[in-house]
């Protein structure tokens, strides 16, 4: 029992079985696809439809009540399927002699006996032991297949996986025969939203189009699910959004790399034979049948070759005296081939490593740059510098990344025609990128070329005679924004229009009197000394004493108009003998005290008067005649440093005075051990000034 429907076909009502209709529709769709690229394709389809309609009415006239599956099938057979058109144009002789099947086979055999074109790697169907990978490689590199096979056997462990991959990925020469269309990745122009990449992928993997589309869109949507928390508010993390252009870049690369399916055969290749586990399995099964025989053959071949080589060697040794030249050339050829092969493999390996590391390096620079973009206005001037920055970012970094990845994909996809135009475009763009990079660097370094005249000023302390000074962050300003995955130091603190740079170096020296004192040295670079002086004067770094705490500000405020010109602060804290100092570990954690663009970077805040101290955070130190000593030299600092409440409390002062007296004896013991003479008159600012003037 079959359902019969009426269709309006070429202006006539045709009763047709539903299944027959489906078949017909599919057939006409395939014709449309086939003739899509042809001029006047509508007319051709129309003519064919007209002919089909005519055949239908003939059938109906003969007394059939409706068009059946068999009718449609007969018509399709007489009209021919798109795949037959190709064969028809080629295999006419075969058809005339009514031996099409036989001839086709013979033809394909002949075809595959011809060496495949050298620019494409095929698995050799005719001379295979397992899957023809080695023979294919040998053809490709124009080498003796025995050499490659022996290499594969020797390095079985290492080359096993590559062999499997090549087996699956590399097409067999059998696929170059007529009739079977190897599936290849194309962009589908008929079913595209942007470039047809997604629908091409869908065809290739035989999945629904929406799957790759959603996958490509996903990174653009995910920012909705990532939330940034600032204070009590949450909002979609737009920063993450703007930093995840990965999908777009991949799309663009694929767009460039994958050829568009223009011709019919390309379209058929695009939709070609399903590649799934079953087809891979059947290929492998086909290949494996007869492995034994072929392996035997291979063994004989190796034996022969070994005998041959042995013969050549013996021949050579016997002929050393007489005909050195000609026989040496003979064996030298065989030996040279192996050496060349090894050299080639090595070269390919090196090239692959270089390319991969280049791509990774460029990618990371690109990501770094992307992270740097929000800070752009604090460093670069508007106008040319910004242009150079974008030029560097887009042309110097992303162009080669896209270029190399495109090249790799084109190599993997075995795209035939190398477009010289594209190569030159890439090279030209990259040259522009180099130019922007050089101009950017020179322009920025000009802005940083001059230094200011350093002047040290004393910071007044409200109560310089406390027993202990603890340095910690001003907790009011502790909320700051950093990216989750990147932290572009020293720019840790970042307000809407102000950047807080913690380019701060702390130095502890011995005080000459019995009270704490703090001196601040401001330094800055600039395009000229005047500008550097101006910028240094503009540095305002808030810090104040509250009880025993010395509270440090958030950082040096940088505004877009003043720019970051490596402004730095050197804080010199003078500690009187017998008094203590402690640097809270969050001081360092919440900002960097290490980064300087010039050679100031190495001055970590632990610098003491005689050079460097091995300083620990959250450890109390006491100033002795011979320099700083830890208060509890033998004990774990965690035990003696209970976690402090965030706000400074006055009881903590008393709590900490107790151990002070207890450890006075310890201090004396360690003091007596000290023999090194320290230069207490060491003037830090002169050293800094010297560095500035170098």
């Amino acid at each position, binding site marked *: 029992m079959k359902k019969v429907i009426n269709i309006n076909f070429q202006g006539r009502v045709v009763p047709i079985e539903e299944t027959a209709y489906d078949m017909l529709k599919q057939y006409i769709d395939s014709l449309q696809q086939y003739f899509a690229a042809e001029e*006047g394709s509508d007319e051709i389809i129309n003519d064919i439809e007209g002919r089909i309609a*005519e055949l239908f009415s003939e059938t109906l006239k003969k007394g059939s009540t409706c068009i059946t599956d068999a009718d449609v099938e007969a018509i399709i057979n007489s009209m*021919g399927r798109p795949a037959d058109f190709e064969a028809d144009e080629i295999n*006419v002789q075969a058809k005339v002699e009514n031996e099409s099947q036989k001839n086709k086979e013979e033809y394909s055999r*002949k075809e595959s006996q011809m060496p495949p074109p050298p620019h494409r790697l095929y698995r050799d169907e005719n001379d295979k032991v397992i899957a023809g990978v080695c023979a294919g490689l040998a053809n490709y590199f124009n080498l003796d297949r025995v050499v490659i096979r022996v290499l594969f056997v020797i390095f079985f462990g290492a080359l096993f996986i590559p062999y499997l991959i090549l087996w699956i990925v590399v097409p067999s020469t059998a696929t170059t025969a007529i009739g079977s269309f190897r599936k290849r990745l194309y962009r589908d122009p008929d079913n595209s939203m942007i470039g047809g990449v997604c629908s091409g992928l869908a065809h290739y993997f035989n999945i629904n189009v929406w799957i790759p589309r959603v996958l490509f869109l996903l990174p653009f949507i995910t920012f909705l699910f990532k939330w940034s928390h600032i204070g009590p508010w949450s909002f979609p993390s737009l920063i993450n959004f703007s930093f995840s252009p990965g999908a777009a870049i991949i799309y663009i690369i694929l767009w460039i790399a994958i050829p568009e399916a223009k011709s019919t055969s390309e379209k058929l290749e695009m939709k070609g034979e399903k590649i799934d586990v079953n087809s891979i399995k059947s290929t492998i099964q086909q290949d494996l049948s007869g492995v034994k025989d072929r392996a035997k053959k291979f063994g004989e071949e190796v034996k022969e070759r070994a005998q041959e080589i042995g013969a050549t060697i013996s021949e050579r040794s016997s002929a050393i005296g007489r005909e050195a030249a000609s026989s040496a050339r003979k064996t030298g050829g065989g030996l040279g081939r192996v050496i060349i092969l090894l050299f080639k493999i090595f070269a390919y390996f090196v090239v692959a490593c270089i390319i991969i590391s280049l791509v990774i390096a460029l990618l990371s620079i690109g990501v770094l740059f992307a992270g740097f973009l929000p800070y752009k206005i604090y460093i670069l001037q508007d106008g040319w510098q910004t242009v150079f920055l974008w030029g560097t970012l887009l042309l110097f970094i992303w162009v080669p990344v896209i270029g190399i990845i495109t090249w790799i994909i084109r190599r993997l996809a075995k795209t035939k025609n190398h477009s010289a135009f594209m190569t030159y475009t890439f090279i030209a763009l990259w040259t522009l990128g180099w130019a922007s990079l050089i101009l950017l660097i020179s322009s920025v370094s000009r802005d940083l070329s001059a230094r200011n005249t350093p002047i040290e000023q004393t910071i007044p302390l409200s109560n310089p005679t406390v027993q202990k000074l603890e340095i910690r962050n001003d907790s009011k300003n502790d909320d700051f924004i950093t990216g989750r995955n990147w932290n572009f130091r020293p720019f840790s603190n970042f307000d809407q229009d102000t950047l807080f740079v913690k380019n701060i170096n702390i130095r502890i020296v011995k005080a000459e009197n019995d009270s704490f004192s703090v001196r601040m040295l401001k330094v800055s670079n600039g395009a000229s000394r005047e500008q550097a002086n101006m910028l240094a004067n503009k540095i305002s770094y808030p810090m104040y004493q509250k009880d025993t705490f010395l509270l440090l500000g958030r950082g040096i405020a940088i505004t877009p108009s003043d720019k970051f010109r490596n402004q730095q602060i050197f804080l010199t804290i003078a500690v009187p003998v017998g008094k203590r100092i402690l640097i809270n570990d969050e001081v360092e954690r919440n900002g960097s005290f290490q980064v300087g663009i010039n050679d100031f970077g190495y001055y970590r805040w632990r610098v003491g008067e005689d050079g460097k101290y091995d300083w620990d955070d959250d450890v109390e130190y006491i100033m002795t005649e011979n320099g700083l000593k830890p208060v509890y030299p033998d004990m774990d600092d965690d035990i003696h440093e209970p976690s402090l409440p965030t706000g400074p409390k006055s009881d903590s002062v008393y709590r900490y005075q107790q151990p002070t007296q207890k450890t006075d004896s310890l201090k004396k013991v360690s003091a007596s051990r000290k023999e090194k003479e320290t230069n207490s008159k060491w003037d830090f600012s002169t050293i800094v000034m010297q560095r500035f003037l170098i």
Partner: protein
Amino acid sequence: MDIQNTQSQMRKGVLEFCILSIIRHGEAYPSDIVEKMKAANLHILEGTLYPLLTRLKNAGLLTYRWVESNSGPPRKYFSMTEAGLGFYEKLEATWEELANAVKTLTDITPETSPIENTETSTPNNNQ
């Protein structure tokens, strides 16, 4: 050298020539053309014929008129234009030339070839 390409090129030219020669004798309906070619033992699929006709028509070599049919939709009957006639005559001349040339060349028997004799004689001289 791609044999597929060569064969398809060979056949394409001949197919057009054959179709034109059928139409030259008078108006023709595509399925008649297929029948006539089949009778001459030159098989062609209708699906191959229609695009060829369209191409020839678009090139101005053929023209067509609609003829009402009692068995289905109106039929397209193709006939030759002036340009098509000129085209056909040129093809015919070329075909004759080619056929003669090919026949002459393929009839040459291998033993009369002087090249092979010299080749086989060289190794003998060495020994």
